[in-house]
């Protein structure tokens, strides 16, 4: 085994130009498929990142309950179970927010506009204030006063409102009554509309009061996890821990496919269409994760990857023909050598193995070269910053194309290369093994 491998390995460098051409052809195929895989992988990653920024988390928990009047409302009450879960899993949570939200009309004079409004506990979310890019005014007031609002610059421009002026908020309470509040504009911030993220911020207790909730209640618990790979398990932990005894497994099953996203609006449709009519006591939780939202994106990406695979396979088949021909030539060139090895007691199988190992090494060499080339290409292309249209930014990472290659895909592609090389080399290898030692030795090559 080791001997045949050694001879095979040395044989690769025997006809350098020929090996170079074959490995080069394989490398090209590998380059193509790797770039496609890496590009789609990177796009998925960027979309996921941008989504989770826009949605404010990787895992989303909503609470639903029935009012006495028979209306279902979205609300999470202070809950010991939740607090405990957050504490127990603190190591896996990068950060979380407990927010209320509404889509009120903002009214200033004769102008009004609808805009997403988050009710935030500013003390709890100390990082939020730091992340907002203030263009006018100051954020200090929000910590001391309840009835002040932070507006995105474009919204303020639409309304014609200035810092320090007062505007009206009109919304429906959770139970559907009209309600109005009066708030002062504390600061204007840069809009992040290109990320689909444009919202105003106000203190949660104030928004809660308008919505008809207690100060410590909220509607959405969003969490960023430390390890995105474990997000599904993480979400399941929460889902299972929060399920009420009377709740059936089907709630989860129903929740999963029914995700509808409105970036910039309500993050996730709070009331799935097919709502069961039977009422329940207390709060029922719905736990969702970013991957469920990403499913549609990954479907498209999957198709792209499959197209890449087809191209790759076509390239491999072309290469196969080259390998078969080359190996047949090699067999003829090495006839006498094969005869010599056979005379000394090399079995047919071992002769075959030399050729097959050679095919394996050639395939691996090609793959390696292809991967190195891909790395170079991705590094070069990845360092260029594109001034793409805002809608394209969603696929980019800070204007750059990102590449992410998954190890299983690389292994699969390499296995495909090695497999096809083996098939291509099989017949010449067999023919070489079947050579009669006598005839091989009397050959003149």
């Amino acid at each position, binding site marked *: 085994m080791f001997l045949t491998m050694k*001879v095979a390995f040395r044989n690769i460098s025997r006809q350098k130009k020929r090996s170079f051409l074959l490995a080069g052809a394989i490398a090209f195929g590998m380059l193509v498929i790797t770039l496609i895989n890496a590009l789609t992988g990177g796009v998925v990653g960027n979309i996921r990142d941008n989504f989770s920024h826009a949605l404010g988390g990787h895992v989303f928990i909503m609470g639903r309950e029935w009012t006495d009047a028979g209306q279902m409302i979205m609300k999470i009450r202070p809950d010991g179970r939740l607090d405990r879960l957050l504490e127990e899993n603190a190591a896996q949570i990068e950060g979380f927010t407990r927010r209320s939200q509404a889509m009120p009309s903002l009214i200033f004079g004769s102008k009004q506009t609808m805009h997403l409004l988050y009710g935030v506990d500013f003390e709890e979310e100390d990082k939020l204030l730091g992340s907002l890019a203030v263009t006018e005014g100051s954020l200090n007031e929000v910590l001391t006063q309840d009835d002040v609002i932070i507006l995105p610059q474009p919204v303020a421009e639409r309304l014609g409102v200035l810092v320090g002026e007062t505007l009206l908020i009109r919304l429906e309470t959770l139970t559907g009554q009209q309600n109005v509040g009066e708030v002062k504009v504390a600061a204007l911030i840069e809009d992040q509309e290109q990320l689909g993220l444009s919202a105003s911020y106000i203190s949660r207790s104030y928004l809660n009061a308008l919505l008809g909730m207690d100060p410590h209640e909220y509607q959405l618990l969003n969490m960023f996890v430390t390890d995105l790979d474990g997000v599904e398990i993480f979400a399941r932990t929460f889902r299972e821990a929060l399920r009420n005894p009377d709740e059936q497994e089907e709630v989860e099953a129903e929740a999963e496919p029914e995700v509808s996203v409105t970036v910039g609006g309500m993050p996730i449709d709070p009331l799935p269409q097919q709502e069961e009519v039977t009422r329940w006591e207390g709060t029922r939780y719905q736990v969702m994760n970013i991957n469920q939202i990403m499913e549609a994106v990954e479907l498209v990406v999957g198709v792209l990857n499959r197209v890449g695979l087809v191209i790759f396979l076509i390239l491999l088949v072309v290469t196969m023909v080259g390998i078969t021909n080359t190996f047949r030539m090699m067999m003829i060139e090495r006839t006498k050598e094969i005869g*010599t090895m056979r005379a000394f*007691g090399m079995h047919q199988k071992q002769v075959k193995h030399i050729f097959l190992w050679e095919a394996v090494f050639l395939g691996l060499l090609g793959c390696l070269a292809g991967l190195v080339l891909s790395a170079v290409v991705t590094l070069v292309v990845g360092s260029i910053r594109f001034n793409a249209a805002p809608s394209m930014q969603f696929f980019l990472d800070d204007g750059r194309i990102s590449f992410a290659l998954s190890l299983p895909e690389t292994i699969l592609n390499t296995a495909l290369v090695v497999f096809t090389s083996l098939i291509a080399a099989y017949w010449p290898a067999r023919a070489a093994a079947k050579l009669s030692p006598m005839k091989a030795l009397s050959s003149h090559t």
Partner: protein
Amino acid sequence: MAIVELENVKKVYTLGKAEVHALRGVTFAIDKGDFASIVGPSGSGKSTILNLIGCIDQPTEGVVRIDGTITEGLKDKGLTTLRHETLGFIFQSFNLIPVLNVYENIEFPLLLGKNRPSKKEIKEWIEFLVEAVGLADHMHHKSNELSGGQRQRVAIARALATKPEIVLADEPTANLDSKTGQSIIELMKKMNAELNTTFIFSTHDRTIMEIADHVIQLLDGLVVEDSKTGAKAGNLL
């Protein structure tokens, strides 16, 4: 004790419709430890005989017995194993494996078998052989860095690597000048004496056959003289 026996061996090659009677009933025996030479003009059947003894070809008729084993009926696997265990080969055009260096070429037959000696034993033995054929300084050279005579020395060491009973050499000096050829035969003789390995070599060079202690003379596929039995063509016919 005979280590190689041929009994009324015939070999017919068919070339399309034509039949070539390469051997037409050859009988002889070679004893263990012999330094035997098969002599005859070109086309007399020397290579054919060595191929049959070397188990890389089978007779059309008759019996070939190698170290007690009759080759008839053996499949490729059996023949290959027999070759590996009992035979070593030296070729006219050296046939070294170009991708292996001197040491590796000599080691090569040893690594083919199943029950091979330990690494240390192999190393000591190969180093002994390299020394014995006078190539200690060239251990790590590739064959294309060696002269013809040096290559044939490597080939001799390689043929002895598995400590075979028999080493076959088909015109080992044909591609060498006469002085180098002479030294190669002398080296073979030296190894024959030192290791008691049976050597059978073919040649059409009269001066070289004189060093042999057993000479079998061929003509047109028949033994015309066997120095051991004293048989002459006339007696056979």
